């Protein structure tokens, strides 16, 4: 039986009719459609930079996905949250809350904010070199994970006899100290349903700015840009090796190859990047993905439609059935959480083991 692939789609780049992108219905319809296709997750890209002049505006990505969460039941919801200007504490608690309101379907696509426009809009710091921003992103991810773990799963005891609602020995200070921030903890939010919402990062083989460190140390999902199959295979192997060097158990990092797709017969609308690019029919795309899946060893794909409203129906109604015919994609969700879809175990909290050792 062939190895099944993971399939996800980017919602956020181009092609949104201006006013509609500000309504909940627009996003509910798109994400509901993706869920019909049993896709692993959607990503919603975000930035604090002003949107392009011809855009109708860009809402906060966590807000949009939280708004859609109660109206969907299976699909993973992965917003971009940038780490440069946002407080790590707020990022961690917002994502934990997204995990609660979606009952275990939140993820986090980590990005930085290198632009001058964002720096001046927030007004808290000068723009910094990109490697420094990614080093800070690694710290922000570390803080988020520690805060998610800062409540053990069984911290709430409701023990009327002793009058205690929680066992405070199962709550932990995280005492993170880094060059940009220090955070004491614990979180105000109990441990989220997935324990840790999966962390994703996009990178290509040329990146040397700290994304690889984030990928190896913290990411559960890597969205890989690699034009040639051989490059993708090498990058995947390197990622697995670096994750092992970082002390992570094997099989806990999913590598998804990013593919820019245009299924509407348009040309010239694909993002210029070193990504696999595809223009054509869904059947041809299914062939390409099957081939790349075998040739590169990646775990699946992250599709970047030229126009999400135009291309997503084709993905769901044509591409997904074509992949299913080849035995490459699930016919229905078999689990309820994003970790379930990705085949990633729910991690034990880092502090839980310490407590066990101390007991």
């Amino acid at each position, binding site marked *: 039986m062939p190895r099944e692939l993971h399939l996800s789609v980017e919602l956020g780049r181009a092609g949104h009719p201006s006013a509609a992108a500000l*309504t*909940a219905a627009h996003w509910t319809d798109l994400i509901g459609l993706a869920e019909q296709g049993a896709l692993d997750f959607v990503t919603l890209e975000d930035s604090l930079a002003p949107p392009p002049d011809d855009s109708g505006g860009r809402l906060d990505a966590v807000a949009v996905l939280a708004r859609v*969460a109660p109206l969907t039941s299976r699909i993973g919801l992965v917003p971009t949250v940038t780490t440069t200007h*946002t407080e790590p504490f*707020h990022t961690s608690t917002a994502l934990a*809350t997204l995990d*609660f309101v979606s009952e275990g379907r939140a993820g986090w696509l980590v990005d930085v904010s290198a632009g001058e426009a964002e720096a001046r809009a927030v007004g808290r710091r000068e723009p910094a070199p990109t490697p420094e921003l990614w080093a800070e992103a690694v710290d922000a991810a570390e803080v988020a994970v520690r805060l998610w773990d800062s409540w053990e799963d069984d911290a709430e005891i409701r023990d009327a006899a002793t009058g*205690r609602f929680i066992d*405070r020995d199962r709550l932990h200070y995280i005492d993170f100290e880094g060059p940009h921030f220090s955070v004491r903890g*614990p979180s105000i939010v109990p441990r989220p349903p997935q324990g840790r919402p999966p962390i994703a990062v996009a990178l290509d083989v040329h990146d040397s700015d700290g994304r690889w460190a984030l990928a190896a140390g913290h990411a559960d999902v890597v969205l890989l840009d690699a034009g040639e199959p051989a490059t993708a295979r090498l990058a995947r192997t390197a990622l697995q090796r670096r994750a092992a060097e970082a002390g992570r158990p094997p099989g806990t990092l999913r590598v998804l190859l990013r593919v820019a797709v245009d299924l509407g017969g348009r040309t010239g609308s694909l993002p210029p990047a070193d990504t696999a690019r595809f223009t054509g029919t869904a059947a041809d795309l299914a062939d390409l993905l099957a081939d790349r899946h075998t040739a590169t060893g990646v775990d699946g794909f992250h599709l970047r439609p030229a126009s999400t409203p135009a291309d997503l129906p084709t993905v769901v109604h044509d591409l997904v059935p074509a992949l299913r015919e080849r035995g490459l994609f699930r016919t229905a969700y078999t689990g309820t959480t994003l970790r379930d879809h990705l085949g990633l175990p729910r991690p034990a909290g880092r502090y839980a083991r310490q407590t066990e050792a101390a007991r």
Partner: protein
Amino acid sequence: MTRTTTTTGTRTTTGTRVTTTTGGRRKQIHLAAHFPGVNNTTVWQDPDSGSQIDFSSFRHLARTAERGRFDFFFLAEGLRLRERKGLIHDLDVVGRPESLTVLNALAAVTEHLGLAATVNATFNEPYELARRFASLDHLSGGRAAWNVVTTSDTFTGANFRRGGYLDRADRYLRAEEFVEVARALWDSWPADGAPRTVRHTGPQFGITARATVPHSPQRHPVLIQAGDSDEGREFAARTADVVFSRHGTLEAGRAFHADVKRRLARYGRQPDELKIMPGVTFVLGDSEAEAQERAAHLRRQQVSPQTAIAFVENVWGRDLSAYDPDGPLPDLDPVPDSDVVQGWAHAGDRFGIAAKWRALAEEKHLSIRELAIEQTARQSFIGTPATVAATIDEYVQTDAADGFILVPHLTPGGLDEFVDRVIPLLQERGTFRTEYEGPTLRDHLGLARPGGEGRHERAASTPAG
């Protein structure tokens, strides 16, 4: 102090006023539902007490409030778990979600209910927070509200980049400048026009920014304010749409109401442009006696033996864990500047309170726990649905309040009985809506949609602080 905010670009026409006041109609009551808090008002030992964190609890309470045609749903904020003697306080409900995220989710399961988040101006920046509130307002179709609070302690600051940087004296300066910048951003992108660049230079913020979203349905989310000092009242009169007040008795309520409304004229505002809503608790019963019994039982649940010791420690500023909750108050003196408890409001004059409590305990022969129960605030409204409805109406008709923020004791069912039994009686009196009259929270509260640039320029020219 120099402070300027300019918005470049073309001017737009001012917005329209959507308030509808029918002549001769009795003064209408406004009601909000407070999600049960992280404190000992919330009873967790009760068999009916559900999760304080699962989304189903939020959904239940919000839908109950909407079924009762409430104006809005309210979430408090805590950015650091409270501590006592250097340890996390473990006797009360602990743990809550991040407010804006859970409110966006609630927007999906409600249609009309306003959605209010308490969010700190100290540990956020205007550009980012203005965007988050504008997003909630868009995604909820105009139902967002912001309860602006400030924190100055280093205890809370330990979770944030800047630590405890803000001087206590500068709290309102920060909040006011924050709101000014946020409103400039909300005004800067007309729905049918191009975004304009907002430039602001002041003691707290220096930004040059273009908004990422155009005008939201309410343009400005409803602004709630809860401070009670002279400064806080002045801030409310200048800036807020709703005051979350603590003055829940008839006399104190009237005095507060009159004082704050009087201040409005200074800022060219009409009395009905600011709603005063005290936070109140309630206990219902089939008879007055039954309601009183339930209230007394509830206070015992709220003050466990351990909570009673903690209650007295807050005033004494000492570790009193060796004391018997069923025994007498400590004969030690309080420690004036104790940091034994962190995350609670300051106890005030510790010696004065301790002396008063000792006298009371002696006179009535009260143990520590009995005193704590006696001193725990009595529920605001205790009675049959008929008397509670009559009392609420009386408060509003006699200007002790414009409405109330109800704080249930129980998650998530603590509002069910009120909505089932009291709301119909208020509706019969003709003082509470039977249907929502408009889609936005401003509609429910009878507040105008802000006029944009004109209003902003007026705010910017007001002398600061």
